[in-house]
């Protein structure tokens, strides 16, 4: 079974629009990671959230982890074509050296 559920699976937005991607787990998350992947390339680390209620921002991307640490959202403000790609959420359970479990990803297309 999939550890993390991401929604939507794909998203097509016009440049300048805001968007939100969600990541949900049935289990408590001990670390929630957001990565971006372009086709044929590796994963680029965006942000990591650990504490319930935590929120982090980098440029026009904001990520939040809910108080129960079972859901995270990634919000992009005023999207640009450079934001296009696959957004993956990953989470660990247990030790700091533990594996990451990933969602299936959200394919984002931004058209001019």
């Amino acid at each position: 079974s999939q550890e993390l559920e991401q929604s939507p699976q794909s998203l097509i937005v016009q440049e300048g629009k805001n968007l939100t991607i969600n990541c949900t787990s049935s289990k408590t998350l001990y670390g929630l990671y957001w990565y971006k992947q372009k086709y044929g390339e590796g994963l680029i680390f965006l942000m990591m959230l650990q504490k319930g209620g935590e929120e982090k921002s980098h440029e026009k991307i904001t990520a939040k982890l809910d108080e129960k640490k079972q859901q995270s959202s990634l919000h992009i403000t005023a999207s640009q074509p450079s934001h296009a790609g696959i957004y993956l959420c990953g989470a660990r359970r247990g030790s700091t050296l533990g594996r990451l479990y990933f969602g299936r990803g959200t394919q984002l297309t931004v058209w001019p």
Partner: protein
Amino acid sequence: EAGVAQSPRYKIIEKRQSVAFWCNPISGHATLYWYQQILGQGPKLLIQFQNNGVVDDSQLPKDRFSAERLKGVDSTLKIQPAKLEDSAVYLCASSLMGQTYNEQFFGPGTRLTVL
């Protein structure tokens, strides 16, 4: 700082053939991971090394997959013999031991096509 290096970037083989992938982690990173990413899915961990010891290989199909990390630096992942369902991107990642959080840095991946 140099990132995680992987080679080859692309590989096409026929089923039942053998293939090997190479990974060079970021200098000083003690933990190395191999993930398999099938098209349309998120990466799935195959094996995790701490220095040259295996920490987790519970998801590695050991009848055909093997991996080693000699001297605790570079790593090689091998598939022998390959099956059609092994077509995927194989990602290598590394992380610094002892961090309070487990940020993993990923390489560009090797795209394997099995015909």
